[in-house]
């Protein structure tokens, strides 16, 4: 039995496969634990990527915080 590659399964789960290939892949997944595990790994990768995206956004926002000139304490009225 030929197993699907990581990229095949990426195309499968993202709807980048044609109908026949998709049906064939779904049938294979039902009976192949190796490919099911690979698909599960891809889902775990999605969780890691979500964490990375959140961290990047949070730190990017913090890095954009501007140093404010200290004029307020001298009064401005």
């Amino acid at each position, binding site marked *: 039995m030929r197993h699907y590659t990581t990229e095949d399964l990426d195309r499968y789960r993202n709807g980048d496969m044609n109908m026949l290939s998709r049906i064939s892949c779904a049938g294979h997944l039902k009976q192949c634990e190796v490919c099911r595990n690979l698909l599960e790994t891809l889902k775990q990768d999605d969780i890691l990527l979500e964490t990375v*995206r959140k961290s990047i956004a949070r730190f990017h926002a913090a890095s954009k915080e501007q140093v*404010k000139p200290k004029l307020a304490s001298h009064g401005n009225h």
Partner: protein
Amino acid sequence: MAFTTRKSLLSKIKQGDEISWEEFYASYRPLILLRAGDLGLTQTEKDDLVQIVMSEFFKGSRDFQYDRGKGRFRDYLKSIINNQAISILRKRKNLEVGLDDREFSLANGLEQAWNDEWQGHLLNMAMDELKNCVEPVTYQAFDLYAIQRRKSIEVADFLDMSVNSVYVAKNRCLEQLKKIIADVSESD
């Protein structure tokens, strides 16, 4: 096709290499600001804290080397940030309650917040490192598809590659990123 040339900042710290002011500032300013926010500092106080923490590390020099005898860098850094934040808070006229580093760490989930921020910091450093480890076009495909969440077909068109190649790039970068994360987590 390995592009690994630049040492990560954490590797340098671990190995006692010289760290430049600019490199440290760019990497650690966001982390210090986030921690300052947790500790309830105002915007002006946050800016002061960044400058004071930087001075603590660099002592007027353009470079510094971390002495591993001081223990884990993350703990040392947290301790400096906390101590300096306490000093800033004490300058507020109306502060009557005494604060110490231990109270600070344990209060209001601050310890958990620090752990989360440190993990976020490591992920950001790992992403910086990733850029140096893979071909630019591979990183670009990964960034557009996996980080910016563009559609695979759009990324493929934009970079003039197949959709399959976009996924190859994504998976190659992820594999490398996991190795880097394991490496920086070990060396923190």
